C-alpha cells in the first residue's frame, strides 16, 4: 500500500487527516481513488440517499465597496454611474417573489459602503422581520467586522444587535483563502484570516450558525488550500457552528486579478479533499453557480451532499461573466439522474420536502 492509499484508507476508517496528509492527497493525480474515498466518507456522514438544496434569493443591497478586492467584478465606487443602494420597495418585492416561489430564506450581502452605518443594517433586518416570515441568512464576516469598525462596538455587540433585530444565520463568504499571504495579494483591504474566524467564533458562541466558503484557483498553493481547511476544522472543534463547507473556484471574468479559472479536475479534487479533511463538518456543497450543472452534479460522486441554492438571483458571480441558470426542476432532475433522492431543505439543513422519483 502506498502513501496515497494509506492516507485514503485512514480517512475512510474515520481517522483525522493531518496537514501533511492533505498535501499529499492534493498532489496526487489519482482523481478516482480520492473521489471514491470522499464518497465513502460522505455516505458515512450523510447516510441515506438524500441530496438537498435550498430555495432562496441573494439580495445584494449595495455594490459600493471600499474593499476593492482584485478577484471581484461586482464592486463599484460611490460615484460610479451604476453604483446603487437597494430601495425598500425593491427589497420587499424581491422577498415577496422569494416567498411566492416557495423560498425559505434570503441571503442579503453587499459591499462595504462608507455611508452605511450599523443602524442601516439593523433597520434593514427588522423591517423585513416585521413584515415577513423568512429566514435571514446575511452579512458575511467582512461586513460584520466593518459594522464593528464604523460603530466602535465589539464584534460580539454587533452580532447580538443583529441577532436581536432578526438575523438568523451568517453566510461564509469573505473567507477566500484563510492565509494572510494570499489575502495580501488578492484582497489586501479585506480583514485578515484571524479576524474572519473571530467573527465566526463570536457568531457561533451566541447561537448563530454559519457556513464556511473557500475561493480557490487564483494565487494560492495546494498547501494553502489544505491549511484553509485545517483552520476551519480547528474552529469547528471549538465552536461547532459551521453547517456546511462550500468550495468554489475563482471566476476571473471582469476582475483586476484576471487569469484562468480552476479546471474540472481541480474542482473535484478540492471538493473531495474537503470532504476528507473536514471530518467535523456535516455538509459539503457543490456549486452549480460557478461550475455549471454538469460538473456540479458529478461532484455528488466526489463527496458533495448538497446542491446549494436554487437561487432566484445572483449578482456577484454573474458580474464575473459566469451565468449558469439552473431552476428547481433542473436541480431535481440532476439529483435524480445521479441516483439520489432530491429534497428541499431550509437553512438549518432540515428537510422540508422530498421529490418522488419521476
Amino acid at each position: 500500500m502506498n502513501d496515497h492509499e494509506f492516507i485514503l484508507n485512514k480517512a475512510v476508517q474515520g481517522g483525522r487527516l493531518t496537514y501533511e496528509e492533505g498535501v499529499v492527497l492534493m498532489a496526487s493525480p489519482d482523481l478516482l481513488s480520492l473521489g471514491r474515498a470522499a464518497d465513502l466518507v460522505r455516505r458515512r456522514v450523510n447516510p441515506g440517499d438524500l441530496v438537498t438544496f435550498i430555495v432562496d434569493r441573494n439580495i445584494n443591497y449595495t455594490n459600493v465597496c471600499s474593499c476593492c478586492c482584485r478577484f471581484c467584478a461586482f464592486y463599484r465606487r460611490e460615484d460610479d454611474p451604476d453604483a446603487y443602494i437597494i430601495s425598500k420597495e425593491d427589497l420587499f418585492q424581491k422577498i415577496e417573489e422569494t416567498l411566492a416561489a416557495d423560498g425559505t430564506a434570503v441571503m442579503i450581502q453587499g459591499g462595504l459602503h462608507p455611508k452605511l452605518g450599523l443602524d442601516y443594517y439593523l433597520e434593514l433586518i427588522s423591517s423585513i422581520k416585521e413584515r415577513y416570515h423568512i429566514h435571514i441568512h446575511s452579512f458575511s464576516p467582512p461586513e460584520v467586522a466593518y459594522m464593528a469598525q464604523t460603530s466602535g462596538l465589539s464584534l460580539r455587540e454587533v452580532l447580538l444587535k443583529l441577532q436581536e433585530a432578526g438575523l438568523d444565520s451568517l453566510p461564509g463568504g469573505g473567507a477566500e483563502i484563510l492565509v494572510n499571504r494570499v489575502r495580501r495579494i488578492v484582497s489586501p483591504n479585506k480583514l485578515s484570516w484571524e479576524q474572519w474566524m473571530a467573527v465566526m467564533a463570536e457568531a457561533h458562541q451566541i447561537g448563530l450558525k454559519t457556513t464556511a466558503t473557500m475561493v480557490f484557483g487564483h494565487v494560492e498553493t495546494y498547501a494553502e488550500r489544505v491549511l484553509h481547511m485545517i483552520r476551519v476544522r480547528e474552529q469547528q472543534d471549538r465552536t461547532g457552528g459551521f453547517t456546511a463547507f462550500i468550495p468554489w473556484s475563482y471566476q476571473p471574468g471582469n476582475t483586476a486579478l484576471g487569469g484562468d479559472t480552476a479546471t474540472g479536475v481541480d474542482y473535484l479534487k478540492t471538493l473531495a479533499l474537503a470532504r476528507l479533511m473536514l471530518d467535523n463538518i456535516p455538509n459539503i456543497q457543490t456549486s452549480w453557480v460557478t461550475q455549471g450543472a454538469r460538473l456540479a452534479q458529478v461532484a455528488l460522486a466526489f463527496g458533495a451532499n448538497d446542491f446549494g441554492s436554487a437561487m432566484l438571483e445572483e449578482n456577484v458571480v454573474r458580474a464575473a461573466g459566469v451565468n449558469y441558470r439552473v431552476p428547481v426542476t433542473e436541480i431535481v432532475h440532476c439529483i435524480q439522474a445521479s441516483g439520489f433522492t432530491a429534497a428541499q431543505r431550509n437553512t438549518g439543513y432540515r428537510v422540508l420536502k422530498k421529490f418522488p422519483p419521476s
Partner: protein
Amino acid sequence: MDHILNGELADLGQKVLSGTRLSREDGIRLYQTKDLLALGSLANWVRRQKNGDKAYFIVNRHINHTNICENLCKLCAFGREAGDPHAYTLGLDEIEAKALASAKERISEIHVVGGLNPGLKLDYYVEMLQRLRQALPGVLIQSFTAVEVDYLAKLHHKPVEEVLALLQAAGLDSLPGGGAEIFAPRVRKIICPKKISGERWLEVHLAAHRLGMRTNATMLYGHVETVEERVDHLISLREAQDRTGGFLTFIPLTFHSRNTGLEPLQLPSSTGYDDLKTLAVARLMLDNFDHIKAFWIYIGLKLAQVALFFGADDLDGTVVEEKIAHDAGAETSQFITKAEIIKTIKAAGFIPVERDTLYNVVEEGF
C-alpha cells in the same frame, strides 16, 4: 482496483480485466449502475491499457459549407429550407479563403460538413476537395458524413463506392462520424425520419473502409432513446469494426435541444453523470476501437477534462466556427487555443499529444 472487484460490478470487472468481451446485458448493467466511480475506474483501466497516460488533441478547422438541407431532421437546429432568409451556401472561393486563413494556425485537419443541398452537385464537392488540397498541402481532409455521401450517390444515381472513390481521388482522406444518431429505427422515425437508416450509415462507412479510408463513428444521445438502444448502437459499431477495423474513434455527442424540432417535447437535458457514463460504457463495450473522444464543445472543457478519467483519451481540438452544436444551444465557447488545451490536459496529470486525423503524432513533449 479492489473496489471494482468487490462492488456490484465485480463480475464485469473480472471480465474486463481478463479481456473478455462484454455482452448486451453487461452493457445495460453498466449503464444502470449508480456507482459512477466504479464504472469510471473500470473504463480508466482499459483506457490506460490502450493509450497509457496520453491525451490526444487536434488543431483543426471546421467549415459548414451550407445549412440548406432536404432532411430537416427534428434533432437539428442547423438545417434550413432553401428559401429561408437564414439559408446560406458558401461559394468555393469563400471556402478556399477560409482554408487559407487558417493556414498560419498550423492546422493538421480541415473538417467540412453541411446539409443535403439539392443545388450542390458532385462537381462542387470534387472541386472543393481539390482546392482545399491545393490551398493546404499536407493537411488532412476529413469531410462529409455518410448521410451526405449517400445523398450525392442518390443525386447522381451512382453507387456509393463510386462516389467515395471520386471524392477520395479529389483529396478526401477520411469521413467524420456524423449522422449515426441512434441506429434503432424506432428512434430515427421520431428524431430524423428522412435520414438514411442505421444499416445504410454502416454500409457507407464499410465501403469507405474498403477503399482504405479510416472513418469515425458517433452516437447522439440524451433525447428519446432508451439505454438498450444505446447499447445496441454500440454493439452494431463493434460488429462493423470486427469486419473492417476502419473506425478510428468513437464520439458520443450529447443532445442539445434548443431551437430543434424536439424542443417542444421538453426532454430533460443529459447530465454530467450521463455524459461520463456514456463515455465509460463506450470505452468498455468498444473493445476494438482505439480511441474514445470527449468532444469539449458539446460538454464543456471542465467536464471533458474529467472525462479523461472515464475512458476518453481525446478532447478533439481547437474548433473554429462550429455552428451545428451551437445553433442547438451548446453554451461552450467556440474556440480554445492550443495552449489552453495543453494546459488542461497537463493539469489533469495526462500527457498531451497533438495528433492528425489518423492519430499520427504531429507534436508532443509539451
